[in-house]
Structure formats: structure tokens, C-alpha cells
């Protein structure tokens, strides 16, 4: 493995990403920038989540299919701690913590939920862990939906965006006005990419550290890790917590991007989206999910065209159908033909976690 090879892969990923952004401009002569902003906001949020998932699966080999619940815990805890309105009657809670305090508690809550979900991982092999994590995520979703008095249930939570938007710097308003952006979405987008930036910095710092090394050793062979005097269980739990914390942050951002929070956001499909992004970008890489996410969202946003080709006057349902259909094809195709993704190293292609 030489450095020139890495940079070649990196350049390739960069090129594909640039090309997909160019496609947006090419296909949308009008309003390309607005589409791009929307797309980059989602790409940032989902990319961040995929980076967290990569800590689980790519670094530690944990088959986590309950990622949506980490995002959900982060979002719900953060929002409920701040002033908001919830439920059928839109019951208003005026008191609450300031945004940053709530966010930190939300992230910690997500990490602790990661710890809880990580406990089965002590005992269970890969495919069983997949079933348990997806089931636990469903339990979380069903409970949130059912505990209407606290979470707003199916009616969701509203009136919380101001907690975050009041920190919006003035320059965003100025420049959004010029470009026809929604300033609040621009602020969420910026926050997402700043979060990605710092998360990547953090992970870069960790990946080649003794701790990151230890996680990868767990992924490779747990028995050997234990034979070297290292506590593999604790390492797995730490990995679960870190990845879940990152997912929690992305969940909060997702909530602010939507402007209202509903339980239907955190369905298993959300997890599968994040998986698709991770595999596309490259399992085990740090920056891979970023590229993966942008390309993924370009594909998603441009599939509408495909839908209009297939169906005259496609309705929302048909648009969604075509989108998800492509996600399924993408996951299958990548897993079969390029499991290492865009940035993944071929040497790390062994995907058979035990």
C-alpha cells in the first residue's frame, strides 16, 4: 500500500463527486443552487451518520442495523430538553435548556443507548447482532410513538427550530438572500458540514491512535485480542458509544432540517440509507462516507427525472418508490461487485465478520 495509491483513490472519489455535482447543474438549468443546498444539507447529515456507522462496522466489525435509533435518541432527547410544542394539542413547553446544553446531553444519551444496544454484542455473532439491533431500534420507535404524552407520539414535535436558528450568524441571511436560499436550511447545512469537519478531525486523530488500532484488532480477531491481554468487550462497547454519539448528533441536525419531528423519520429504511452511503463511500474509511453521501443524494434527487420518464405525472408515492428502488439496487450492486466502495482499500475487502 503506497501513498500514491491512496491519493489515486481519493482523486477518483473526488472526481466522481465533482461530476455528480456538475450533473445537478447540467440537469437543472434553473434553480440548481437551491437544489444543491437541499442536497448538500441531507448529504452532510447522512454522511455524518454514516461516519458513525463506519466506526461500528468498518472499524470494529459490529453489524449494527439499529442506527436509526441512535439518531432518534439524540434527536428526541435534545428537542425535548429545549422549549418546544408536542402532541395532538401541540402542548407547549416554554422552559428548557439552551441549545448547546441540550445537544450535549442528547449526544450523551445516544451514546448511552449505544452502550445498551452494545450489550448483546458481547454474546452474539454477526447475523444475530443484526437482528437484535434492528429489533431494538423498532422497539425504540414503537415506544416513542406510543408515549404520546412525552414525545408527542405520531403527532410529533414542533416549534423547536428557533432554539437553534437564533444562533444563526448574520452573514448567512445576507448571502442566502442573494442566492435565493432558505437561510434556516443554509444554517443547518453549515452546521452539518462543520460537524463533519470536526468529527473527521476527531476520527483522524483516533484512527491511527492506539485506541483505533485496538478497535481494528477486535474486528480482525477477538480471541487474539484477548490473548494479548486486552478487554475486547469493553473496546466493542466504546466503539458502540462513539458511533452512536456521532449518529445522535446527526439525528439532531436531521430534526432541525425537517423543522418538525415525527416518529416516521426513524424507520429501518433510514438505517438502510446510511448503510448504502457507508458501503458506497468505503467501509472502514473516514472520509469515504462524505463522498458516498454526496453522490448518493445526487442520485436520489435526480431519480425524480427517472420517475417522470417512467410515469407520466408521477405522484409523490411513485417518486419515493423509484428512489427507494434505486437504493435497493445500489446496496445489492455494491455488495456484489464493489464491496470496498469508492474509497475503500481492496486489501480491506474481506467482509466476512464473524
Amino acid at each position, binding site marked *: 500500500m503506497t501513498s500514491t495509491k491512496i491519493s489515486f483513490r481519493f482523486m477518483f472519489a473526488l472526481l466522481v463527486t465533482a461530476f455528480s455535482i456538475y450533473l445537478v447543474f447540467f440537469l437543472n438549468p434553473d434553480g440548481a443552487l437551491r437544489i444543491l443546498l437541499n442536497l448538500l444539507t441531507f448529504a452532510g447529515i447522512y454522511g455524518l451518520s454514516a461516519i458513525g456507522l463506519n466506526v461500528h462496522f468498518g472499524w470494529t466489525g459490529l453489524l449494527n442495523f439499529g442506527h436509526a435509533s441512535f439518531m432518534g435518541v439524540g434527536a428526541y432527547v435534545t428537542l425535548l430538553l429545549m422549549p418546544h410544542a408536542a402532541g395532538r394539542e401541540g402542548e407547549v413547553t416554554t422552559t428548557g435548556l439552551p441549545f448547546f446544553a441540550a445537544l450535549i446531553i442528547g449526544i450523551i444519551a445516544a451514546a448511552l443507548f449505544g452502550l445498551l444496544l452494545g450489550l448483546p454484542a458481547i454474546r452474539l455473532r454477526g447475523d444475530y447482532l443484526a437482528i437484535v439491533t434492528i429489533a431494538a431500534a423498532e422497539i425504540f420507535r414503537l415506544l416513542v410513538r406510543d408515549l404520546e404524552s412525552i414525545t408527542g407520539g405520531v403527532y410529533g414535535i414542533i416549534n423547536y427550530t428557533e432554539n437553534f436558528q437564533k444562533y444563526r450568524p448574520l452573514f448567512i441571511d445576507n448571502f442566502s438572500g442573494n442566492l435565493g436560499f432558505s437561510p434556516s436550511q443554509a444554517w443547518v447545512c453549515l452546521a452539518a458540514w462543520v460537524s463533519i469537519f470536526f468529527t473527521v478531525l*476527531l476520527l483522524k*486523530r483516533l484512527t491511527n491512535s492506539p485506541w483505533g*488500532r485496538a478497535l481494528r484488532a477486535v474486528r480482525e*480477531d477477538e480471541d487474539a485480542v*484477548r*490473548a*494479548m*491481554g486486552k478487554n475486547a468487550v469493553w473496546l466493542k462497547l466504546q466503539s458502540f458509544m462513539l458511533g452512536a454519539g456521532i449518529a445522535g448528533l446527526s439525528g439532531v441536525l436531521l430534526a432541525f432540517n425537517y423543522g418538525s419531528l415525527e416518529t416516521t423519520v426513524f424507520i429501518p429504511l433510514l438505517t438502510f440509507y446510511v448503510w448504502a452511503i457507508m458501503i458506497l463511500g468505503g467501509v*472502514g474509511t473516514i472520509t469515504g462516507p462524505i463522498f458516498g453521501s454526496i453522490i448518493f443524494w445526487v442520485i436520489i434527487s435526480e431519480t425524480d427525472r427517472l420517475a417522470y420518464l417512467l410515469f407520466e405525472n408521477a405522484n409523490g408515492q411513485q417518486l419515493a418508490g423509484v428512489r427507494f428502488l434505486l437504493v435497493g439496487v445500489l446496496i445489492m450492486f455494491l455488495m456484489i461487485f464493489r464491496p470496498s466502495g469508492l474509497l475503500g482499500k481492496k486489501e*480491506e475487502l474481506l467482509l466476512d465478520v464473524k
Partner: protein
Amino acid sequence: MSNNLISVNNLKKSFGGLKAVDVQELSFKEGELTSIIGPNGAGKTTFFDLISGFQDADSGSIFLKDKDISNAQPYKIARMGMVRTFQLTKVFDRMTVMENLLFSGSNIKNDSFLRSFIKLNSQKLYESNLREKANEIMNDLNIGHMANSYARELSGGQKKLLELARSIINEPEILLLDEPLAGVNPKLAEDILSLITKLSDSGITILMVEHNIEAVMKISERIVVLAEGSLIADGIPNEIRTDSNVIEAYLGKADE
């Protein structure tokens, strides 16, 4: 039992109805190089699994340095200075040879999340010392040129060497070697044998399971023979070679 580093009493383990290990009493002295031999299915690897904590015994006790480790977690036993290798070599495939060694050599404090995040100068120093130590060991074992290769690119013999290097980087007191010569070519086997002798001379207590009897006879100070889980002979190589029980266990009797 001052100079008995490891001792086991009434150690029993069976799988289903099959008795895998049934050892009344066995102990190993400090500094000794002992080989455990026996025909297939004699329970040698299970014996290793039991004393290194990878399997729990059905009954009986194991003492390491006078501490009861009968049901201790493997990593705790390893931290007490007893490190093992595996019959089927277990290297960290998708990590470089250097990373394999650094991981194994690094202590738990150094591995902590917080330290890894803060990266104090003391940690950087520790890591660079570790790197030096790893380089030394790799050069000693002739895998220095592979330092930056992925472990999975190594040949079977090189993997054995890497596993050995990984086990000794922490300067263990006791080394359990499970078939260190399996699948290794004769030239390399020589090298590994002289390395084992060297380690033994430096004072490390070594227990070794090995099928290459010639090698075992050559380097062992003591040989323990297991058959069907039980101890059938225990002595110096010359005694073992002429022991009728042993010959029978290996070659069987012509008529029974």
C-alpha cells in the same frame, strides 16, 4: 509451591460424552521448557484453552503464581504474564505487521480512548519506543522487511513468526505455544526452534504443544504426554522416547 509457576489439580473438561481433559495433578516450574505431546485428540489444545481461560473447566483448579485463575477471563490471565499462541495462526489480517506488533505491545493505559484523543507527548514517546522495540523484534525474526505489509499478505511461516513476535513483545513470563512449527518449512522450523531455545535461556517459562517430535526431543527439558485427556508420561526426552506407554499411545498395539 514456591517455584511452581503453574499448577493444576483435578482438571476436567468433557464435550458431550467425550472426555477431553482429565488431569489429576500437573505443575510447571519457573524457567522450564516443557513440551506437551500426544496423539490426535489427546486434549492438548483443550488443556491450553483451559489454562489460558479460553474455555472454562468442568471442575478442578488452575493456579498461576499461586493465584487461582480457574474461571478467569483470558485477558486477565494474559495480563498476569501468561501469553499464548494459537494452533491456527491468528494474526490481525487487515492490519500491517507493524500495527500487529504495536497493538500487542501497547499497554492498556496507552490504549485508552482519552489518551488516544489527547495524545500527550508522553504517549508519543511511548509509541516511538514501542515502534523501536517492534522493529528490533521484527529484525530479530527476519520479518522486518514486511513491516508495512498487511498481515494477510504474509506466508504461513511468516504469520507464525509474526504471532511469535506479537507474543514476546510484552516480555511475558510464561509463553504457551500451540504448534509453533505446524505448516512451517524445515529451514524456518530451525529458526523458530533456536528462537524458542533462546527465549527459554533468557528465563521465560515455555509450554509448547508440538507434533514435530524430533524438534520436541531436541529442545525440551521436559516432556509431558497426554492421551485421551489423561497424563500418561512425564519426564526428560530420553525417558519418554523409550516409554512403552508412549509408544503404544502413538503407534497403538498390534493386537488388543
